[in-house]
């Protein structure tokens, strides 16, 4: 990007978030002054680092209603998901070899399940059609774990975590939820919702990149086979020096999120409604993907019919957006999440995800809506499909031939 060009507006808060300046303030002293290893037991550098890490642990625990001893710092939600799924699966594998998850999970959850499949496990990938999750029917006597994400990163849908948690607890099955997009945005309580394992990501809640946490319940005890062997740090579940500045940053981000959750939620839903109303009023044939009621308002996934998604993204070059999640954007296939919720393939190709966060302003939302309407109209003018629809031809009746 040219230095003189103004930077694009950032509307991709599901991919990552800017670090809150207050979090940076909390982290800096631990980068240059209080730089001790928190596991050094014998001197003040170690003691001050350890107390900072323990304070951060408490801040993370308070966000989700957990005990600080139940929080393990990791390198991010991907590692937390790997630890939860592979760890629980492998520990109980002598008697239980079945894991249940959904088709709309994040790639790291699906890939961890695939790795277990290669080790001889049976995995059930539940479909997520409009009649809800058929969870109870898929329980087996040898089910050890259910993994269902709280808020989807592509379409913003919120799963009924409390009901799922109670159902799993009644059958003595462990319940893991990937709360990377949910923690700090919607209220979560691991005891109220009967969650046994939870993954948290630092850079989704205005914290530093490269840190996350996993909540592992102590009562009743959830046992894991650790992925990372070493000196036994973090209860033996994740060996390795805990990065004090990153942990402090995560703690500060969680504390800020807990205090400002209500205010942020109100503001984000107001901006979200503004964006959707403007776009829907300005354009016909716009479909919102995902459940309209049970959703997090900051993640809006819209499909613009008869327009190709990638070309719209290129046309909106002064707004930073994405179609599908960041981890699948390299491939040309439309998102598997949209396919799983039953979106038509042509609509899946034309979907754009708008992300609204703590630092989004009204002007940004208005500008995005106006530009979007302008560009979609322009692209539709060029589209032969749009012409055919205007003439009244039903596109579904056409037989396309290859040549």
């Amino acid at each position, binding site marked *: 990007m040219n230095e003189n060009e103004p930077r694009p507006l950032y509307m991709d808060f599901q991919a990552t978030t800017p670090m809150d300046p207050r979090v940076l303030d909390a982290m800096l002293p631990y980068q240059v002054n209080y730089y001790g290893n928190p596991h050094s037991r014998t001197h003040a550098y170690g003691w001050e680092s350890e107390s900072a890490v323990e304070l951060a642990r408490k801040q993370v625990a308070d966000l989700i209603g957990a005990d600080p001893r139940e929080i393990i710092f990791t390198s991010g939600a991907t590692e937390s998901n790997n630890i939860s799924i592979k760890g629980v699966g492998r*520990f*109980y594998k002598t*008697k239980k070899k079945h894991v249940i998850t959904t088709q709309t999970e994040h790639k790291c959850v699906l890939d961890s399940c695939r790795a277990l499949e290669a080790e001889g496990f049976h995995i059930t990938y539940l479909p997520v059609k409009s009649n809800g999750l058929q969870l109870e029917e898929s329980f087996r006597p040898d089910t050890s774990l259910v993994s269902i994400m709280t808020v989807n990163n592509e379409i913003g849908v919120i799963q009924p975590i409390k009901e799922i948690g109670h159902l799993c607890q009644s059958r003595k099955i462990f319940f893991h939820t990937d709360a990377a997009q949910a923690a700090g945005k919607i209220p979560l309580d691991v005891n109220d919702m009967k969650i046994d394992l939870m993954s948290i990501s630092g850079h989704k809640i205005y914290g530093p990149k490269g840190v996350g946490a996993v909540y592992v319940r*102590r009562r009743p*005890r959830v046992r894991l086979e650790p992925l990372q062997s070493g000196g036994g740090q973090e*209860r*033996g*579940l994740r060996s390795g020096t805990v990065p004090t500045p990153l942990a402090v940053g995560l703690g500060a981000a969680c504390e800020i999120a807990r205090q400002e959750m209500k205010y942020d939620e109100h503001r984000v839903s107001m901006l979200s409604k503004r964006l959707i109303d403007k776009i829907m009023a300005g354009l016909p044939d716009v479909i919102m993907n995902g459940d309209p009621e049970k959703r997090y308002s900051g993640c809006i996934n819209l499909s613009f019919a008869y327009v190709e998604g990638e070309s719209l993204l290129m046309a909106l070059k002064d707004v930073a957006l994405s179609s599908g999640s960041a981890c699948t954007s390299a491939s040309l296939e439309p998102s598997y999440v949209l396919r799983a919720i039953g979106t038509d393939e042509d609509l899946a190709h034309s979907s754009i995800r708008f992300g609204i966060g703590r630092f989004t302003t009204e002007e940004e939302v208005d500008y995005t809506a106006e530009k979007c309407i302008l560009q979609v109209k322009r692209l539709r003018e060029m589209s032969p499909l749009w012409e055919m629809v205007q003439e009244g031809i039903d596109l579904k009746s056409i037989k396309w031939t290859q040549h």
Partner: protein
Amino acid sequence: MAASTVLRKSMGLTLTIRTVSNIPNLSDWARLKHCRHLQHSTSGARCQTACRSLHTSAGLCHSDEEGAERERGKDVVNVVYVDRSGRRIPVKGRVGDNVLYLAHKHGIELEGACEASLACSTCHVYVSDRHHGKLPEPDEREDDMLDMAPLLQENSRLGCQIILTPELEGMELTLPKITRNFYVDGHTPKPH
């Protein structure tokens, strides 16, 4: 024990001399060796320091009385230890015995680094499946220490927290291949 050790050291003596009563067929020297071998039994044996003359009060080595009772078959609980090489060692324990100290008494390599104070995981054992459910629920601190043990399984417990009861008859205690104090050179620490 610590105070009397200090006392003995201050008097410049290195021998601990105890008197023993009524052990048939043992000479004096053998009795002395016998007592020192039983130094780390759970019940405290009375020991007297010599200040230039032998005290001969009626001190008893309690373990020997226990040994006599064991022969009579009262409160016997038979357990089997399976050591790291797979060798099965049947042991006659008594009700109320601590599994860790019972192992030490029979020379089994169960390391108890913290001496049953729930501060380590070196006495980690696998309990046979049909007895695992009969043990009481682990204390939260025991669970915390077990979290740190390598090669953890569903039937893992800390040996120092298992007290023998009659229903644990026939229990098999398998030692895991490694403990947290793993010595890659094959060194095994002596029990203290």
